[in-house]
């Protein structure tokens, strides 16, 4: 993975010093709350109901075991001994003290980590596919490009005060595990007719109050032009994006109001002017790519026979293998999900002790690297099949082997009313209740791939509008109600879910999920997925089932 040189290190160290001084001035009354807010947000610090919340960046979801141990240590010493992973592969501390934050950032800087631009109206962490670099269908590894974007977007002087936040996601294969069509910019590495690899560029996707699927602005961009094209889009947006209404300030609204064709004309006209000057040097591309070479794989890994024997003799292991591991481009290797969705636990949460175990397991079995995913789980990406049984046993001992990846209980969930100052309604306790209701693993496997996404307010941090089942908490005269949507997707077939009907009271949320699932079981054709069934029959049959009693 990428290693800082003296310049990268100096940049994060100077950032810590800058924020330490800003915090000191705020606490001394030299900066007002309004003046301090954007400064702390640009360092990931929110002021929440109970305590500040600090969001720490995991650039493109990649961490070393050393970094994970430091995170565990920080969570223990400065917080309550656990962290929460987010849908943008970052993680959050929910209870740090404001005056400790400069020290926390200084500790993070010692392991090449930071909280730069994890909030605020700036360019956020670039995210990617958790299987980048190991996936057989990949056209090219997107991580070097994500790192090149990270450097370009870090402290970009022109784009620190955008109309609104700006998120970029990049993938290198057709399967979209990074929700690229729901980002301000989505980048797809593609091959053109001449066999050259470049980027398809999408713009104007986004969730929140007005969910919109991104549109193609350029079918093919030469790789060397990546930064100039991004800069052109950002400049057009910085000048044109609405600043009068924060709910209309995202680039998705700019694109909708002006039309993709007009935006394309503006971007291309800007791009022509800066293209030559900002063209990436091959030397720089090679420098960054050199950090993402293949690890020292065992070419005999597939010769192992113990693994097949274990699969045959241990049904629990076989289930976990089927559900929680993913094929690897190297024969004899698998990528392994560390499930942060144990039933009865807040989705995406992990304790310091568990983090330390994961770091040890990464060192022993996966070249010392850990990845975080859009679905709020972790991945050990390079595990030999001969090691899977032992790894499974040790994950199981820590409650990290729940074999529910991509099932109904692999719920994406925001912190909700219990933790977040923005939320209108509870989300985590209800997610736990849903998981408790569906605790029969055989039934879960029979139901197959069902993505529930559960947000506690319109800001939609859990991306509910693209859930196969989306659940949105709303406030009605001081009471918590829940709006369901069906049929959304964040993948290559991206779609915004359709409203099921009127909002549902809190005590009926779990029953409503049951009704939806019962309806699906009745309606499905053999092997038909939940999403395919909803798309075939529409929302009405589900609606009838849910609202039948009323």
């Amino acid at each position: 993975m990428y290693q800082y040189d003296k310049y990268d290190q100096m940049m994060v160290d100077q950032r810590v010093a800058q924020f330490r001084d800003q915090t000191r001035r705020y606490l001394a009354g030299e900066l007002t709350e309004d003046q301090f807010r954007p400064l702390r947000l640009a360092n990931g610090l929110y002021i929440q109901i109970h305590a500040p919340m600090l969001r720490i960046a995991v650039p493109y979801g990649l961490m070393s075991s050393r970094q994970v141990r430091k995170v565990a240590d920080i969570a223990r010493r400065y917080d309550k001994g656990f962290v929460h992973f987010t849908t943008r592969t970052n993680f959050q501390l929910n209870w740090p003290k404001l005056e400790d934050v400069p020290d926390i950032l200084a500790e993070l800087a010692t392991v090449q980590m930071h909280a730069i631009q994890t909030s605020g109206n700036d360019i956020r962490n670039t995210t990617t596919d958790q299987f980048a670099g190991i996936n057989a269908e990949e056209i090219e590894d997107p991580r070097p490009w994500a790192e090149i974007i990270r450097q370009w977007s870090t402290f970009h002087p022109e784009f620190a005060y955008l109309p609104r936040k700006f998120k970029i996601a990049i993938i290198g294969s057709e399967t979209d595990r990074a929700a690229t069509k729901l980002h301000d910019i989505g980048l797809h590495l593609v091959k053109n007719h001449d066999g050259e690899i470049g980027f398809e560029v999408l713009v104007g996707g986004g969730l929140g109050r007005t969910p919109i699927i991104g549109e193609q602005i350029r079918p093919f961009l030469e790789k060397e032009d990546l930064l100039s094209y991004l800069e052109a889009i950002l400049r057009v947006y910085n000048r044109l994006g609405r600043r009068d209404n924060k709910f209309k300030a995202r680039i998705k609204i700019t694109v909708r109001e002006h039309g993709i064709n007009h935006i394309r004309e503006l971007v291309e006209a800007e791009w022509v002017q800066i293209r030559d000057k900002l063209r990436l040097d091959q030397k720089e591309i090679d420098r960054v790519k050199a950090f993402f070479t293949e690890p020292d794989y065992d070419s005999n890994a597939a010769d192992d026979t113990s693994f097949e024997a274990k699969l045959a003799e241990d049904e629990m292991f076989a289930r976990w293998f089927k559900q929680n591991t993913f094929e690897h481009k190297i024969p004899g290797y698998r990528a392994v999900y560390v499930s942060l969705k144990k039933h009865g636990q807040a989705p995406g949460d992990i304790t310091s002790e568990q983090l330390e175990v994961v770091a040890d397991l990464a060192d022993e079995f996966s070249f010392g690297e850990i990845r975080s995913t859009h679905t709020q789980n972790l991945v050990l990406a390079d595990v030999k099949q001969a090691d899977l049984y032992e790894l499974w046993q040790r994950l199981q001992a820590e409650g990290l082997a729940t074999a529910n990846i991509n099932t109904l209980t692999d719920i994406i969930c925001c912190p909700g009313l219990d933790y977040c100052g923005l939320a209108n309604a509870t989300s985590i306790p209800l997610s736990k209740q849903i998981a408790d209701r569906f605790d029969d693993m055989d039934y879960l496997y029979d139901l197959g791939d069902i993505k529930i996404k559960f947000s506690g307010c319109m800001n939609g941090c859990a991306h509910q509008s693209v859930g196969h089942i989306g659940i949105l908490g709303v406030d009605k005269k001081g009471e918590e109600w829940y709006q369901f949507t069906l049929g959304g997707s964040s993948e290559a077939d991206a779609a915004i879910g359709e409203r099921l009907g009127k909002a549902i009271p809190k005590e009926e949320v779990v029953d409503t999920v049951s009704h939806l699932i019962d309806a699906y079981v009745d309606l499905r054709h053999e092997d038909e997925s939940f999403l395919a069934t909803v798309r075939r029959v529409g929302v009405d049959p589900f609606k009838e089932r849910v609202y039948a009693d009323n």
Partner: protein
Amino acid sequence: MQIIKDREIVEDNWLHLDDEAALVAGNITVSLARWQEQHETLEHHEGGLGLRLSGDDPLEEIVPDLARFSMIVLLFPVFTDGRCYSYAKLLRERYGFKGEIRAQGDVLQDQLFYMSQCGINSFELANPNRLTNALSAFDDFTESYQATVLRPEPLYRRR
């Protein structure tokens, strides 16, 4: 009033003329509206002439007139309005403006580094009592990853 110019605290010798105020000799700045209405008179102004622009004004339309101005004042009505960062960069890099570019309005210490990298070289701070403290902000970072007005080559070419 004191301002920061080229990283030094100096006495300001410019007058920002309201649209209603009578023309006076010496260094003055005018709004875009006044420039458009009275440009024939203003062409012959004795003393420095500056133009005040906000992010609402059409930058490209004044490009043919740029040579007439020794200063462009960019207005930041609130410090979170980042449009004029792009204006400053375009004025320097695309339109070759060599005169003074000044930030006016809600200009705070913590924005000076980014503003200076975009080509703004003088600053009327919202709080003129903190100018000495604010000077340190230009050195918040000793490098930038990007090609900026102050460092026209991106960092990777210096690595």
